[in-house]
C-alpha cells in the first residue's frame, strides 16, 4: 500500500516572539509562534529561568484567552442599575475625562476618599507608586486574601519567605515536606522540581487534607485536619528537641538562639532583647555579657544570667525549648486534634533529623562568611519545605508559618545545600526597612508607599483614638502587620463608612483592577453585592462611584459605573520587576517584560482597548500628579513602556534591572537606557544574572552574596541578616497592649493584641472553629485549585472548560454514610453564615472530617460571555457564599489577628440531603452581557490550509454539527 506523502517539515509559523505568560501568576517565559497574523502556537521558552521550556495547561490555552469572546472592546458607561450589566460604549476621551472629573476634587479635598485596590496586579511597582503620588493611604492589591501570612510570616522571621521569595533546593534536597500546597506559586517550577525529586528518589511528604495533584505523587500523604498544621509542626519541634536532634551551632551562628531576652514581668522592657549602651544585642558567653554579633565566642543557649545593670535575662533558645518541650505539644497530645497518629509524628521527626544530619551532604564550594572567615565547603541540611494557602488562609496562619520556619531553623535548613533557599533580592533585613506611608507632603503625595512593614506600634495607621485610618483597617490594632492590605474588608467598610452619621472613613470612588470582588474574590459574596448596590434615602449609591478595569466581561464589570477595558496579555507592555514580585531563582536574579505582539485594533472589529498601566499614567497626567507631569503640566510619560524605561525610583534604579546605563552595559543600577526594552526583546523577554558559585548558599551571612546584593541595590549594607526565632517586633506590640509605651491599643483591643503578639509561634483554634458549634457544623470545608485553571480566568476558556465546566462538593464515603448522603446526591451545605445547594460526589482522597471543591469554576449566569445554560452557573457553585467576611462573633474581620489575612479556610459546615435537585443554589439573576457565538470552533483550520494545501479542512465544515 502506498502511504500518502506528508510534509513533515511544515513552517511552525512566520516568526516566534518571546514574552511572558499571564495565564496565572507564575510568569513563565513563552514563545508565541505567529502565522498569517494569528497565533499558531504558544510553547514554553526553553531558555527562560522560570519554566525552562515546559508549559502548563493554562499557558497552552492562551490562544483561547486571547481570542476570547468575553473580551471587552470599548470603554463602558453604566446606563442601568448597578449589577445588571447594562452599559453604553463611550470613547476613551470621554472615559478619561469622567475619571478625571471624579478624581480631581477628591485629591483636592481628601485623597484618602479614593480607595484604589488592584487585585491580581503584577504591576504594583507602578500602581503603589501611583497611589502614593495621588496621596491616598487606601491602596493595596490582593495579597490580603491570598498569602500575606506566608509573606509576613517569612519576612518577619527569615527576611525571605515561601511563596515567591524562596524555593526548595530541588537539586540537592532529599526530603521535601509540602504543607497546604495544592496548585500554588510557583506552579511550573514546583512541578519541574517534583519531577527531579522523583527521578532522584528523594522522599516527598504532602501535608494536606486533600490528596490531589502533588499529594497524589508524594510518597506519603498526611491528611491533616485543616487549621492544625501549627500543632503538628510543634509536635515535630517537640520531638527534635526531645531527641536533641537540632543544629545548635547553626542556631547561634545564623539565628538569634543566643540573644538574651530580658525577664522582668510587668516591666516596660520585659521580653525585649538585652542591649548594651550602643544598642547592640547581648549574649552570655559563660563569664560575661558580650555582644551577640561577636565571633569566636562561646555563647550559652540555656541558663539565666544577670546583666551588669542587675536585670535578669535568658537566651532565646531557652524560651523556645521550654515552650515546645511542654507536654501539651507531645505527639500523643496533639494527635487527635490533628488527625495524625502519634507514631507517624514521631517517625516524621526522626526522618527529618536523619535526612538533615545523617546524609552528610556537603558541597565542595569554598565560601567566606560575613565575618571574613573562610570555609572550605558548604555543609548541607537536605530537608526542605514549601507551604502555601493551606497554611496562609487560616486565622492562625501567621504563627503557623512562623512555626514552620522555626522547625526549619532547628534543622539548620535555611539556605543550606538541600534546604529551603532564598531567591534574590531576598534575604532582606528583618523587618524590611520600608514602613507604610502615613502623612501627606505639601505637594499632596504620601511620604512613603502605602504598603510596608511596621516595626512597632508607632508605625500603625491609627488616629489619636487608636482607630483605623485606612478604609480596610490594615495597620490598625486589629491587624497590625497587614503588609498586603485587606482588600476583603474594603467594600463592607466603604458601605458602612458612608452611612449617615457613621463617623467612619468615607470613600467617594472605589477604583479597582483585575479584582472580581462581586464574585469569587469576595468572602460573603451575597452581602458584598448588596453593599455595592445599596442606596441612601436620596437614591444615591452609598458607594458613590466605582471605576473598574478588566480585560474581560467578569462579574465585577457589572457593578462598575465606568469600565476601562484592558488589553490581553499579548497586546501590552509589562515589567515583571524586582521592585514588585521577582521571578528570581535561588541561583540568580531575574526580571522580565511583556511586550505587545498585536495592536489591539487589529484583533477585532471595533476593538479599542488600552493597557491599564498606560491609562493610569494618562489619568495621573490629567490630574497633574507629581511625577507624572512636567513643570508645564504636560505628560511626563508617553505610556507605560516609556515609564518602564525612563522612571527612576532612586538614582539609577528603575523597574527593570537589565541593560541599564546610556550604553546598556550596566545591570542592576544605572542610568535609563532608551534601548532597554529592545534589549529585553532581543534576549527572550527576560534578564538574568547568575550568582557567583560562592554566593549561592548561606546568603544571610555570606559575604560574597551580601556584597553582590548591595552592589545591585538590594540592600543598604552587607551586614548579615540574623534569623529571628524570637520576634522582638511582636513583643513590642504585646508590651503596648500591656500598658507600656506612648502608643497603646484602645482597651477593646488590648487582650487581643496581648494574646496574638507572642514573640514565639503559638497555635490556637481557628476563630470559626472556636466560635461555632461542633454539633451544628461538624465538617471543615476547603477549596483546592485545579491545575488547569489555577489563578486563571479558566471557565471562560473554550479549551479549559472542557476539562471541567462545573465543580461538585467532594466528600469521603464514610462522611456521606454518616450524614445519610449518597454519591451524586444534591445536598444543602450550611455554615454559620449561609446556605448553598450543590451536588455531592464521593472521593476517598480526603480527610473524612473535610469536604472540598475546586475553586473559581462557578460563574455568574451570563458572565464571561458564557451561555445562560452553561454548567458553570447552573450546576457550578461558589463556596464563598458560605464564608463570612467577619468572625461568627462579629467582632473582627474573618482574618488573621496579626496580618489581616482572610481566613477562608477556617470554614465549618453542615451537610444534609437537599429537597431540590439539578441546579445549584443560590442562583443570581443573569447579567445583561452578550453571549458568545454558539457555532463550533474550528481554530487552526485556516492555519492548516495555509500549510498543507489540503482539502481536508475546508473553510466551512463539511457537515453541520448535530443539534
Amino acid at each position: 500500500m502506498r502511504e500518502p506523502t506528508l510534509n513533515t517539515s511544515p513552517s511552525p509559523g512566520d516568526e516566534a516572539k518571546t514574552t511572558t505568560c499571564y495565564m496565572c501568576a507564575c510568569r513563565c517565559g513563552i514563545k508565541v509562534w505567529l502565522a498569517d497574523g494569528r497565533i499558531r502556537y504558544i510553547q514554553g521558552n526553553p531558555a527562560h529561568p522560570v519554566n525552562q521550556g515546559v508549559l502548563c495547561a493554562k499557558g497552552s490555552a492562551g490562544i483561547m484567552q486571547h481570542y476570547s469572546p468575553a473580551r471587552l472592546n470599548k470603554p463602558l458607561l453604566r446606563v442601568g442599575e448597578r449589577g445588571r450589566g447594562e452599559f453604553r460604549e463611550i470613547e476613551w476621551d470621554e472615559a478619561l475625562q469622567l475619571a478625571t472629573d471624579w478624581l480631581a476634587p477628591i485629591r483636592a479635598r481628601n485623597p484618602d476618599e479614593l480607595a484604589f485596590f488592584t487585585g491580581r496586579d503584577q504591576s504594583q511597582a507602578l500602581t503603589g507608586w501611583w497611589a502614593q503620588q495621588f496621596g491616598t493611604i487606601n491602596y493595596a492589591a490582593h495579597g490580603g486574601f491570598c498569602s500575606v501570612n506566608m509573606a509576613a510570616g517569612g519576612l518577619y522571621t527569615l527576611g525571605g519567605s515561601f511563596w515567591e521569595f524562596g524555593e526548595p533546593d530541588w537539586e540537592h534536597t532529599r526530603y521535601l515536606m509540602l504543607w497546604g500546597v495544592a496548585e500554588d506559586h510557583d506552579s511550573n517550577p514546583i512541578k519541574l522540581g517534583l519531577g527531579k525529586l522523583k527521578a532522584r528518589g528523594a522522599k516527598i511528604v504532602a501535608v494536606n487534607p486533600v490528596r490531589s495533584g502533588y499529594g497524589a505523587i508524594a510518597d506519603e500523604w498526611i491528611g491533616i485536619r485543616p487549621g492544625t498544621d501549627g500543632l503538628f509542626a510543634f509536635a515535630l519541634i517537640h520531638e527534635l528537641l526531645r531527641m536533641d536532634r537540632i543544629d545548635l551551632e547553626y542556631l547561634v551562628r545564623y539565628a538569634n538562639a543566643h540573644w538574651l531576652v530580658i525577664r522582668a514581668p510587668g516591666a516596660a522592657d520585659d521580653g525585649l532583647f538585652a542591649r548594651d549602651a550602643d544598642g547592640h544585642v547581648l549574649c552570655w558567653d559563660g563569664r560575661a555579657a558580650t555582644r551577640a554579633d561577636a565571633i569566636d565566642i562561646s555563647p550559652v543557649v540555656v541558663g539565666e544570667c544577670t546583666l551588669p545593670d542587675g536585670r535578669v535575662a535568658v537566651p532565646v533558645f531557652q524560651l523556645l525549648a521550654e515552650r515546645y518541650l511542654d507536654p501539651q505539644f507531645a505527639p500523643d497530645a496533639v494527635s487527635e486534634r490533628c488527625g495524625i497518629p502519634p507514631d507517624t509524628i514521631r517517625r516524621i521527626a526522626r526522618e527529618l533529623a536523619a535526612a538533615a544530619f545523617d546524609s552528610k551532604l556537603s558541597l565542595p564550594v569554598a565560601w567566606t562568611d560575613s565575618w571574613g572567615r573562610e570555609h572550605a565547603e558548604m555543609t548541607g541540611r537536605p530537608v526542605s519545605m514549601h507551604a502555601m494557602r493551606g497554611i496562609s488562609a487560616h486565622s492562625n496562619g501567621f504563627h503557623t508559618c512562623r512555626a514552620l520556619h522555626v522547625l526549619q531553623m532547628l534543622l539548620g535548613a535555611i539556605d543550606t545545600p538541600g534546604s529551603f533557599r532564598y531567591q534574590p533580592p531576598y534575604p532582606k533585613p528583618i523587618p524590611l526597612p520600608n514602613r507604610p506611608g502615613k502623612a501627606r507632603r505639601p505637594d499632596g503625595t504620601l511620604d512613603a508607599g502605602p504598603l510596608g512593614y511596621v516595626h512597632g506600634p508607632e508605625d500603625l495607621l491609627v488616629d489619636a483614638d487608636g482607630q483605623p485610618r485606612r478604609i480596610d483597617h490594615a495597620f490598625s490594632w486589629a491587624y497590625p502587620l497587614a503588609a498586603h492590605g485587606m482588600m476583603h474588608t474594603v467594600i463592607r467598610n466603604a458601605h458602612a463608612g458612608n452611612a449617615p452619621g457613621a463617623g467612619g472613613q468615607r470613600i467617594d470612588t472605589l477604583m479597582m483592577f483585575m479584582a472580581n470582588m462581586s464574585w469569587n474574590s469576595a468572602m460573603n459574596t451575597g452581602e458584598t453585592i448588596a453593599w455595592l448596590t445599596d442606596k441612601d434615602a436620596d437614591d444615591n449609591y452609598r458607594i458613590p462611584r466605582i471605576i473598574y478595569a478588566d480585560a474581560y466581561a467578569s462579574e465585577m464589570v457589572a457593578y462598575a459605573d465606568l469600565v476601562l477595558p484592558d488589553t490581553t496579555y499579548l497586546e501590552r507592555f509589562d515589567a515583571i520587576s524586582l521592585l514588585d514580585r521577582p521571578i528570581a531563582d535561588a541561583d540568580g536574579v531575574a526580571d522580565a517584560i511583556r511586550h505587545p505582539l498585536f495592536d489591539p485594533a487589529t484583533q477585532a472589529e471595533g476593538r479599542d482597548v488600552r493597557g491599564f498601566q498606560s491609562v493610569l499614567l494618562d489619568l495621573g497626567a490629567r490630574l497633574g500628579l507629581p511625577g507624572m507631569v512636567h513643570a508645564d503640566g504636560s505628560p511626563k510619560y508617553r505610556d507605560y513602556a516609556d515609564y518602564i524605561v525612563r522612571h527612576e525610583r532612586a538614582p539609577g534604579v528603575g523597574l527593570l534591572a537589565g541593560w541599564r546605563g546610556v550604553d546598556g552595559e550596566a545591570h542592576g543600577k544605572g542610568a535609563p537606557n532608551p534601548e532597554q526594552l529592545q534589549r529585553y526583546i532581543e534576549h527572550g523577554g527576560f534578564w538574568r544574572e547568575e550568582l557567583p558559585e560562592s554566593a549561592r548558599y548561606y546568603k544571610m551571612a555570606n559575604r560574597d552574596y551580601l556584597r553582590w546584593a548591595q552592589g545591585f541595590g538590594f540592600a543598604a549594607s552587607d551586614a548579615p541578616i540574623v534569623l529571628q526565632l524570637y520576634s522582638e517586633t511582636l513583643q513590642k506590640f504585646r508590651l503596648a497592649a500591656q500598658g507600656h509605651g506612648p502608643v497603646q491599643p484602645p482597651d477593646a483591643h488590648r487582650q487581643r493584641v496581648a494574646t496574638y503578639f507572642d514573640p514565639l509561634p503559638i497555635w490556637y483554634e481557628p476563630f470559626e472553629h472556636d466560635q461555632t458549634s461542633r454539633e451544628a457544623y461538624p465538617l471543615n470545608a476547603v477549596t483546592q485549585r485545579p491545575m488547569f485553571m489555577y489563578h486563571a480566568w479558566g471557565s471562560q476558556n473554550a479549551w479549559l472548560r472542557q476539562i471541567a465546566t462545573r465543580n461538585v462538593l467532594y466528600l469521603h464515603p464514610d462522611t456521606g454514610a454518616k450524614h445519610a448522603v449518597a454519591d451524586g446526591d444534591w445536598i444543602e451545605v450550611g455554615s454559620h453564615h449561609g446556605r448553598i445547594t450543590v451536588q455531592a460526589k464521593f472521593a476517598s482522597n480526603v480527610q473524612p472530617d473535610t469536604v472540598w471543591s475546586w475553586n473559581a469554576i462557578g460563574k455568574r449566569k451570563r458572565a464571561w460571555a458564557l451561555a445562560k445554560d452553561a454548567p458553570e452557573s447552573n450546576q457550578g457553585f461558589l463556596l464563598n457564599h458560605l464564608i463570612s467576611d467577619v468572625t461568627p462573633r462579629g467582632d473582627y474581620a474573618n482574618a488573621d489577628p496579626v496580618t489581616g489575612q482572610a481566613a477562608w479556610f477556617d470554614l465549618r459546615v453542615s451537610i444534609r440531603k437537599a429537597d431540590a435537585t439539578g441546579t445549584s443554589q443560590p442562583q443570581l439573576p443573569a447579567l445583561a452581557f452578550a453571549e458568545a457565538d454558539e457555532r463550533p470552533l474550528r481554530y487552526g483550520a485556516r492555519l492548516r490550509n495555509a500549510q498543507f494545501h489540503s482539502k481536508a479542512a475546508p473553510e466551512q465544515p463539511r457537515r453541520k454539527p448535530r443539534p
Partner: protein
Amino acid sequence: MTGLPPPSKKKLGLVIDLDTCVGCHACAVSCKEWNAGGIAGPLTDTDPYGKDPSGVWFNRVHSYELEPVPACGSGHDATPAQPAQTLHFPRSCLHCETPACVTVCPTGASYKRAEDGIVLVDEDKCIGCKLCSWACPYGAREYSAVEGVMKKCTLCVDRIYNDNLDEAERQPACVQACPTRARHFGDLGDPDSDISKLVAARGGVDLMPELGYRPTNQYLPPRPRRNGASEAEADARGTAAELDAGNPLQRWMQRVLRR
C-alpha cells in the same frame, strides 16, 4: 480492509511515567494547541461556550482512586502495604504494532507508517465510518462531527522531523510541555535508546497486553510509596538522647558552642 507494513525497525513512541504525573492536563492542552493548526487540524469544539462543550482531543487525562493494598508475603519477598492512591492517567494513541484500527479501515485512510510505526489517518480517504474507533480498545480515536472525519494522535509527525524547529524541540508537543517531565519520546525499537533503557529500568508495561495489539507506548508504574509505616528500623534511631526528666534543659547547659 487495510494492510499493515512489515514491522519497522524504528518504533517511535512515548513513555509515560505514572509515578510522576500530577494530572495537570498540560500534555492534553499543548497537544490540542499544536495539532489544531497542524497536519491533523482543526481540532473542532462544538458548543464551545455553552451547555455541553465538547471537542476533539488527542490526549486526555483521567484520574482514578486506588484502594489501599495490604502487605503481602514475608522476608525478602515481602511487599509492604500500600496506602490509597490517586492515579493520574494520560491516555492517547499507543501506536500499536498490530493496530486493529488500521486493519479494520475499509478505505485505507488509517495506516501505519512503514518507516517509524506511527499510526495516522489520511483524512482525504476517511469516510467517517467510525469502524476504527470501535476497534480501538484504548479509546484513542477522536471523531470530529464538524469535519466528518476521524482524527487521532500523530505523535506530532509534523514536529519530530521538522527541519524548521530547533533540534531540541523536535519532539511531540506533550513531551515538550510536560511540567514534571513525566513524558518521554524516542525509539522503542532500539534497545539502546534512552527511553528503552528507562523502560527496562523502571519495569515499563504495555496497556492491556492480553488483547495482543502490542502497544508501542509504554507506561512506567507508580513506584511503591515509602510512607514508612512499616519501617521498624527507624525506631531504633535517634531516641538515645532522651531528656533528663528533672531538668530537660540540663544537657544544653554545658554545651560548648562556637560562633
